């Protein structure tokens, strides 16, 4: 190995890497919330923000405590959760079923994909009058509306997920002469699971959003009904309590899917 000059200028190599890698700083999120709410509290109290624009956060909180202590919270929350569970279960399971059929069979794909694409941009509230005729005014119509709203995004996510299953794994299954049914059950379905779950995240957010529309249909209790009533009376405190509950519900559902993903997909890198 040849020798290196010792008498030359010496300088350490410049650092030019780093960055572009998000770091976790949980507390910042909390700070942002606290500052935001504090600012609104101050603004509404001093009148700098008029009471028409936003309610006073502490009043909203007091209203929430009232709602809780009166026991009405659960009376509103439980039916809504029930509607979410039943409606989303129907919509999601139908969606996954049809999505898989679309993913597996060219004929079904050709027939149904345009239909799903046509249904996707239809606003569900536009169909409310029809839902009353089709499904009545009881729970059925609320389930149906939520199911309908979750169905289309689930279908799209599912067949996308099936399409994305690594074809080399399927070819492997065929090369070992696995039956068609084994390939679907043991390779296609688990392979599509990550895509289906991340579709679920969107579907369930939509389900929560649709709660309000669903409870326009003759619901006495329910967070959506509570919000609608507050809105029609222009009662901002209650409106914000309702909206906050939905928002928290959404965050919990999202966390829940995160947990399921961790459990079910721990094989992922």
């Amino acid at each position: 190995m040849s020798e290196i000059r010792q008498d030359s200028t010496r300088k350490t190599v410049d650092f030019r890497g780093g960055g572009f890698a998000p770091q976790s700083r949980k507390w910042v999120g909390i700070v942002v919330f606290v500052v935001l709410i504090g600012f609104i509290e101050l603004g509404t109290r001093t009148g700098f923000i008029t009471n028409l624009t936003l309610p006073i956060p502490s009043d909203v909180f007091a209203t929430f405590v009232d709602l809780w202590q009166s026991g009405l919270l659960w009376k509103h929350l439980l039916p809504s959760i029930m509607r979410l569970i039943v409606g989303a279960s129907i919509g999601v399971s139908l969606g996954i079923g049809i999505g898989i059929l679309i993913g597996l069979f060219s004929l079904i794909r050709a027939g149904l994909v345009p239909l799903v694409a046509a249904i996707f941009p239809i606003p569900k509230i536009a169909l409310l009058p029809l839902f009353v005729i089709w499904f009545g005014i009881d729970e059925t119509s609320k389930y149906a509306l939520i199911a309908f709203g979750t169905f289309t995004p689930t279908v799209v996510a599912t067949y996308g997920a099936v399409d994305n299953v690594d074809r080399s794994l399927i070819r492997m299954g065929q090369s070992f002469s696995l039956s068609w049914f084994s390939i679907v059950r043991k390779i296609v379905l688990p392979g599509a699971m990550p895509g289906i779950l991340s579709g679920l995240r969107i579907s369930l957010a939509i389900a929560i959003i649709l709660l309000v529309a669903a409870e326009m249909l003759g619901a006495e209790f329910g967070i959506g009904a509570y919000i609608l009533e507050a809105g029609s009376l222009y009662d901002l405190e209650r409106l914000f309590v309702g909206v906050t509950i939905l928002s928290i519900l959404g965050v919990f559902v999202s966390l829940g899917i995160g947990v399921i993903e961790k459990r079910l997909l721990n094989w992922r890198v």
Partner: protein
Amino acid sequence: MDLRLEAVGHHYGDLEVLSEIDLAIPAGKIVCIVGPSGCGKSTLLRLIGGLEQPTTGQIVQIGTPPTDSINPLTYVFQDFALLPWRTVEGNISLVLEDHRMPSARVTEIIANVLARTKLTEFAKAYPKQLSGGMKQRVAIARALAVKPAILLMDEPLSALDSQTRELLMDDLVGLWTRDPFTSVYVTHNLNEAVRLGHSIVVLSRRPGRIREIVDVTIPLGERELGDPELERQQKHLWNLMRDEALAADKELLNV
């Protein structure tokens, strides 16, 4: 069981990929197939394994596979093709489950192939925990589990780094020496070809035709890194292929 390819040709739409391939694959021997990129090696292997049907010609089995062979024509893939959601064990049991065997038998087969590929202690590991070399060992174990009459290997070592490749070549030679198997082994790597092949089939550029078949007579167990006879054969192969490899490399792909 032997295999014979008779005037096999294949098209994808208007693209002729293989043309006039006549080839015999005798039992107990490893036939290596080399050729420039895109010349149809993988296609040829898929035809042999029945994953695709040749446009012309036919591929015939001569003789019947051993009765205990569960899947006579079995693949080992370049990308391992392990199910990431199953453990090593689970990946092997996958290919046995469709055959309604007593579960004791399944356990026995799995234990046996894991021992042969020195994987016993990794039975419960998930693919993501394994290095590339270990993954390919699992794929080989899975292939052995179905007692293949013929092993079809499509660049099984190409995805591995060269040191791991060296180790796995030793493993394959060990497996063959203890219990000779029949194999069609596709590779780009001429060193692998001369180390593992009893005969080496050189294909031309697309449409792939057989240009030459080189027999290597040194017994498998005696071939070593740096053997001058092997080096000579390798150099001969490289000289045969160099220009075509260069041309294949320079080709613009239309995607």
